[in-house]
């Protein structure tokens, strides 16, 4: 510590101030620079937004209800189509089996 004392009182004070400020820099950087923090300044309730920035609810409601109806109708149609396909295949196979059975009967 002899070298530290040899610097002289003014230089020691200056060095101490610089060290303290360096250590406090992160804390000072986070402290509010007067007034409210940025997040609070940015918040605006939706109803207070200008008219051109407000999102109309009507199209969203229509889109939601339209989607529900579309999905349900498409799903019912796919069940009906798949059922029809299976029934058709069953009829064809049953007819084929019947034909084979009558053919074997004649032999």
């Amino acid at each position, binding site marked *: 510590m002899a070298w530290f004392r040899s610097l002289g009182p003014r230089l020691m004070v200056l060095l101490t101030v610089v060290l303290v400020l360096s250590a406090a820099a992160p804390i000072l950087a986070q402290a509010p620079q007067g007034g409210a923090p940025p997040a609070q300044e940015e918040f605006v309730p*939706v109803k207070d937004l200008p008219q051109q920035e407000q*999102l109309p*609810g*009507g199209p*969203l*409601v229509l*889109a*939601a*209800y339209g*989607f*529900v109806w579309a*999905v*349900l109708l498409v*799903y*019912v149609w796919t*069940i009906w189509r*798949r*059922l029809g396909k*299976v*029934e058709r*295949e*069953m009829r064809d*196979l*049953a007819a*084929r*089996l019947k034909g*084979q059975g009558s053919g074997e009967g004649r032999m």
Partner: protein
Amino acid sequence: MNRSYPFLVLAAIALFAAAPAMVDAAPYESTMGLVQKIFYYHVPSAMVMFLSALVCGVASGLYLFRKNTAADRWATAAAELTVVFGLIVLVTGPLWARKAWGVWWQWDARLTSTLLMWMIFAAYLLVRRFGGPGAEKLAAAMAVFGMANVPFVYISVNIWRTIHPTTRVVPTLAPGMREVFWFAVLAFMVLFALLLALRARLEARRAALEDLYLLADE
């Protein structure tokens, strides 16, 4: 079940035809306004999704532990309906959220767990479709785990911090909204019963067709 089809079809058509008029007549929610009316289709769809997942899980358990093939057919039907109604929930929710929260999606507990549950049942259908021989049992085990998710998804809003409303909303609905909501729930439940019966019938016919093919091979 065949005799009840016409009744279920008529009931579902009548209920769904009346629902938009009832929803239109329901009072506006004070803070969200018009967009809150998505609630009347979004929440009943979620209820049906939960019910369908439970049906699928229980039926899959019966198939796994009791070798009940009829239960497996009901499980397949219910899994498909879980995916269909889950899709409705996952699309109508963000449409509502965009206006109410300012964002389409949030990775919070309710939304994320619902998406994961939906993916489990979508995976169930993919495993059954492309899994090859023995995939039915693997899919059934997946369905049991999918069903186990239901209580977690339901109570997630009460346990974790989330922007999604809690489960206290429905029991505390204001008069005027309450009747319309339960009417919509009834409409969705009748439709679910109808679609489940139709879809299970499709599986039963497919099983009969497979038996016929086996008979033809012999």
